[in-house]
C-alpha cells in the first residue's frame, strides 16, 4: 500500500465484515519517541485463539471464494519492514484490536496519506460509526461520527455531506500537523 491511510481503510473493511457497529481509529505520532502508532479497535464478533493465530498468514481468509487474504499480512509486513511492530488481540463476542507501530523517520515508512479520503470513503459506503483521534506531539484532532449523525442523521452518506466532511477533515488534519 502506498499510504498508511489505505491500510486503515482496508482494516476497517475487516471490522465491517466482522459485524462491528463501532470502530475506533487512533493515530499517535511522537517525534520525541520517533514513533507513529496506528490502533484500530472494533466491537465486531471477535476471533477465538486458533483463528487469531492464523490471521497474519497470507493463506488464511474468512472468505470461501478465494484462498488468500492479504490485508493483515500486508500491514504487518509494512510495520516490521520499517523497524516497527504489529500486534493483534481479539476476544470472541467482544471485538478485535490491531496495533501497528512504525518508526517515524524510517526511510521505508509509507506516508500517512489522506485520512480525509479514507474516512470519507468509510462514511460513504459503510454504516459503521467511527471514533477517530489523531495526536501529534500533544496536539489532537478528534472526530466522532455519532456526533455528526446527531446533526445530519441518516444523510451522512449523501454525496454533498461526504464532500463537506472530506474538506473538514482535510482542514483539521492540516491544523494538527504531523504526517500528511
Amino acid at each position, binding site marked *: *500500500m*502506498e499510504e498508511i491511510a*489505505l491500510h486503515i*481503510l*482496508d482494516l476497517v*473493511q475487516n471490522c465491517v*465484515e466482522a459485524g462491528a457497529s463501532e470502530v475506533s481509529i487512533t493515530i499517535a505520532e511522537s517525534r520525541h519517541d520517533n514513533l507513529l502508532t496506528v490502533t484500530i479497535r472494533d466491537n465486531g464478533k471477535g476471533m477465538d485463539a486458533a483463528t487469531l493465530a492464523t490471521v497474519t498468514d497470507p493463506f488464511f481468509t474468512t*472468505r470461501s*471464494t*478465494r484462498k488468500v*487474504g*492479504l*490485508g493483515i499480512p*500486508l500491514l504487518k509486513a509494512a510495520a516490521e519492514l520499517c523497524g516497527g511492530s504489529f500486534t493483534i488481540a481479539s476476544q470472541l463476542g467482544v471485538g478485535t484490536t490491531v496495533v501497528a507501530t512504525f518508526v517515524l523517520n524510517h526511510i521505508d515508512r509509507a506516508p500517512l496519506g489522506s485520512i480525509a*479520503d*479514507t474516512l*470519507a*470513503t468509510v462514511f*460513504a*459506503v*459503510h454504516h459503521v460509526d467511527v471514533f477517530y483521534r489523531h495526536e501529534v506531539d500533544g496536539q489532537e484532532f478528534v472526530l466522532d461520527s455519532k456526533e455528526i449523525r446527531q446533526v445530519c442523521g*441518516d*444523510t451522512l*452518506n*449523501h*454525496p*454533498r455531506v*461526504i*464532500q463537506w466532511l*472530506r474538506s473538514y477533515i482535510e482542514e483539521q488534519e492540516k491544523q494538527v500537523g504531523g504526517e500528511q
Partner: protein
Amino acid sequence: MTKLREGEPEIRIVVAMGTCGIAAGAREALNAFMQELAARGLTGVSVTPVGCMGLCDREPIVEVSAHGGRTLYARVNAEKARRIVREHVEAGRVIEDWVTRN
C-alpha cells in the same frame, strides 16, 4: 446516500474494495464518484462496496447497474469514474472501451 429519497435507488455503482482494489486505487475512484454525483446533484444513485471479485489484475473494478443493464468496468481511476458518471449514469451511454468481462 439514497436516504434523502424514498424507495430503491434506480442506479447502482458497486466498487470492489478488497485489499487488491484498495491497493490499486479504489478509494480514489470511489471519492471521484461521490464528488461527481455531488457536483451534478444526482440522486437515486447508490454507491456500495464489494470485496475482491477475483479480477485483481484489473482493479479497480466497478460495476454499474443502470438503465436496465449491468456493466463491469476495469482499471477505473478518478478521471474514468467522473466520465462514467457523466456518460453512463447520467446520459445512459456505456463506455465500451473500458468494459471488461468476468
